[in-house]
């Protein structure tokens, strides 16, 4: 109640000042002294003119203390050599029970000498009692009319105009506002939306990637990746046991023959790989290891058109790798891929479009390193300078598709296809400082993270 009088509106009407006073109170022992006299006086009174045997005297209640005090005060004397035994005699004829008098004075709140008070306190005859109290006085705007201040402006107050007369509580601006319940989008997919937008802004059309299961033909062979390549191994690729194979009749027959012969003997200006190409390897169903399989299908389709039309295409979707799992690697993740197919494209164009693309991600300093991909030549790894880590880090891979891949499809000889790719997870983890990929994707993700993840601003580093 007191605090509330000091808070808010009331502070102006009522002043409350905290005070305390300390008084001495008699203990029970002290009270018995007032009633019956102190132990020493009672003992003194028990000693007659003829004296009393000490051992008799000591039988009295509180004799030990009383006797010791009476001796100190000089009221009694012992004759140790008395013929009947140690005997106590009065030393003075009269004694005044000073202690009792002092206690009486204290009880009636008369003033007592401070030093004597400490003695009484030592004998535990008195105890201090603190009383805290508030001195309440009228404030500057004291008013006997009772009025409760409002917490909020209401519709009713607006209606009847009573808001003009009312007083309002002060608002606690230091506290947080009410938590807002909402729905939330997943952080990785917010990043995906941004990448999608970047591609669309640059005129790239989206490829249809809703096809997780691929066959070796489109995932590897059409890309001129040889059949004994380590990436086609069971420990890198997920093979499907059911349905195990693609029906050979469902693959384009003429094109398949061209792919086979290019692998085996070359052609189109190539020496080829000079090994025995097996259709059974091409028929094997797998979970796609890259969305480049879709790019291959799209380029084949493009090549079947009457007249070649240049294109810019992209995809962002799931891919699967059967690799060792660790903090930054899962069996499934998202690949981002962009490609441009046009006549007379060069590495200069690839570098140009990469600068344009990465500039939208707030990255303006790029470096390119020669690399190797089975299906691109030239190939370039893309590096950017990370100001936090103070070093160049790899941010993607790129290259120009090999003629052995494009020419068997029927793509015109002067058409070059430049392409690049990166993972969606890696830049997301770097941006949000997430160290373990399982904290970003999968069922173990902390939903609080999802709900507190800010607006995705890719170009704001």
């Amino acid at each position, binding site marked *: 109640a007191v605090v509330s009088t000091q808070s808010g509106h009331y502070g102006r009407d009522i002043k409350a000042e905290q005070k305390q006073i300390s008084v001495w109170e008699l203990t029970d022992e002290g009270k018995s002294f007032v009633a019956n006299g102190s132990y020493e006086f009672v003992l003194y009174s028990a000693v007659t003119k003829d004296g009393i045997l000490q051992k008799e005297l000591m039988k009295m209640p509180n004799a030990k203390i009383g006797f010791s005090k009476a001796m100190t005060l000089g009221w009694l004397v012992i004759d140790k050599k008395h013929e009947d035994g140690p005997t106590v005699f009065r030393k003075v004829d009269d004694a005044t029970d000073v202690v009792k008098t002092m206690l009486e004075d204290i009880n009636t709140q008369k003033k007592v000498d401070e030093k004597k008070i400490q003695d009484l306190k030592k004998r535990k005859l008195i105890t201090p009692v603190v009383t805290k109290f508030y001195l309440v006085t009228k404030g500057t705007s004291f008013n006997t009319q009772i009025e409760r201040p409002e917490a909020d402006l209401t519709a009713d107050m607006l209606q009847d105009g009573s808001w003009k007369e009312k007083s309002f509580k002060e608002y606690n601006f230091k506290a947080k506002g009410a938590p807002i319940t909402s729905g939330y989008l997943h952080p990785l997919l917010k990043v995906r939306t941004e990448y999608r937008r970047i591609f669309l802004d640059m005129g790239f059309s989206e490829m249809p990637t809703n096809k997780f299961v691929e066959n070796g033909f489109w995932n590897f062979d059409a890309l001129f990746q040889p059949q004994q390549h380590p990436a086609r191994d069971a420990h890198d690729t997920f093979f499907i046991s059911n349905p195990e194979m693609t029906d050979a009749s469902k693959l384009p027959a003429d094109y398949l023959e061209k792919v086979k012969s290019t692998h085996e003997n070359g052609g189109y200006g190539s020496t080829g790989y000079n090994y025995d190409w097996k259709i059974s390897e091409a028929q094997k169903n797998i979970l796609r290891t890259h969305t480049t399989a879709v790019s291959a299908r799209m380029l084949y389709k493009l090549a079947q058109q009457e007249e070649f039309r240049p294109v810019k295409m992209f995809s962002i979707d799931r891919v699967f790798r059967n690799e060792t799992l660790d903090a930054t690697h899962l069996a499934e993740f998202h690949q981002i891929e962009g490609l441009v197919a046009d006549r007379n494209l060069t590495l200069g164009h690839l570098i140009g479009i990469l600068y344009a693309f990465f500039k939208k991600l707030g990255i303006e300093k790029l470096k390119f390193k020669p690399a190797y991909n089975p299906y691109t030549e030239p*190939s370039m790894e893309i590096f950017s300078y990370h100001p936090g880590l103070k070093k160049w880090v790899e941010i993607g891979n790129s290259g120009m598709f090999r003629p052995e891949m494009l020419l068997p499809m029927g793509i015109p000889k002067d058409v070059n296809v430049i392409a690049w790719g990166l993972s969606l997870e890696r830049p997301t983890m770097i941006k949000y400082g997430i160290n373990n990929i399982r904290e970003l994707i999968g069922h173990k993700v902390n939903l609080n993270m999802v709900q507190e993840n800010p607006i995705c601003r890719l170009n704001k580093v």
Partner: protein
Amino acid sequence: SSGINAEWPLRPGFEDLCFDFGVELDDIVEEEGITKFKIDIPANRYDLLCVEGLSQGLNVFLGKTTLPRYTVLRARERLHVDGSVEGVRPYVVAAVLRDITLTEDSYNSFILLQDKLHQNIGRERSLVSIGTHDLDTIQGPFKYHALPPPEIKFQPLNQDTVMTAPQMFDIFRKNYLKPYLQIIESSPVYPLITDVNGTVLSLPPVINGNHSKISLSTRNIFIEVTAKDRKKAGIVLDTICGAFSEYCTTPHTIEAVEIVQADGSTFSSPKMGSRIEEYDSAELCLKSGIKTATPEQLADLLTKMCLRASVAGEKLKVEIGPTRHDILHQCDVEEDIAIAYGYNNIPQVLPDLYTIAVEQDVNKLSDSVREELARCGFTEVLTFSLCSRDDVSVNLRIPEAVGGAVQISNPKTFEFQVVRTTLLPGMLKTASCNRNMPLPLKLFEVSDIVVKDTLTETGTKNYRYVCALFAGKTSGFEVVHGLLDRVMLMLDVKDYHIQQTSDPMFFPGRGADIILGTKKIGHLGILHPEVLEKFDVTLPCSVLEFNLDPFV
């Protein structure tokens, strides 16, 4: 990668050199007082897999040396191939490194290169394997043939006694050679290389004989390469000879071996051949975008890349030697020009192509639906496409459903057994893992599921599904029902209704199919408590799941 001891000094400069050349300096470690550089080599550059090859490549790149010319001397040794190897390991090539001096370093490098070649191009020795022998301990002509295992008897490398093939295989089954046994074990005959006296040089691809083992004092090395792939055998032999012939008294000379095949025809090995290609010098720059180089400059650039080139009128004559088996096409040469010129020196230019972007309708609609679901107060999850067989069947009380799921043949754990046919497992697992969230828990996901479909090319098909889950103190059935109504309103769909189903996944009397027109496109309901138990969810849940494709 090539782990090497090097005395190359400046580390900072070295890293940049590697970057420009196209190899990656991965790590620098101090081991026993020696600085070792761990360098990642591109998978198609076998010539760079040893320190000799890498340093040659880098020195030629820096202009410090020129690419050597290899001389193949007339064969003095012969190797006869018997038809018996045809079924087990048909191909063999061989070479001799005469008057060679190996130091401890070069000896170690020699062994290491063989290991690497075994591992990558040899595909763990199954396609190609190498045997190297002290020629002075053996006597040609040599024979490559195959015998029944019990008839094979010799002292294998690092063993103390002579033993038969079955006996040594029993020992090898317990050591590091175990993976190589299966390459030939199923064959009735094992391949063998022997000399004129019957001394066994090797039992490829498993083990060499102890008799002919090489040491630091070996002066003449007989190299044999056996294989299932003829081309790869040639590449391997060329690579070894190219790198280590520098230690012969006359460097870069290799002595041929005459191979006599089963049909009597002969050929000389190794090829160590070069081919000369002629390219139009203007054409060679088309891919790189280099505009300002003269043919002479182009020739210099290529020579820096170990592709000796010279100008011949309008054309460029390029010699592709035995260390550049990675050059398959003109584009490989064009890449080397660009590398030598420096990728980072190529001027950038934007493709002059105006295109208007078109989105995939299913993705555009999915994104819009996702936004609507978030507006309804639901939290989006992103879960795995792969799960266990039980997750899509038994755990949902529909054991027969596993028949429609695409199955993985080599899952590492049961979490990778099938591709999900429903988004429910991921949802339920998320609910189970997020017990500390305030209730009710409202989740959604819009993502692909995969089912078998005999009509498609691969026999499988993706469907885009929408799934929502409500978990709370009460089931929230009316909430997911309301969500369905809301989503249908947002899709501008009026022609739908729900009708009760007895699907065992749902609590009795609390499940319904969603019918669009006359077709079932999904369902909703309160999950059966046994389903909740299987997914370790302790709250009642209502779910909604339907296929979005009909609305696209």
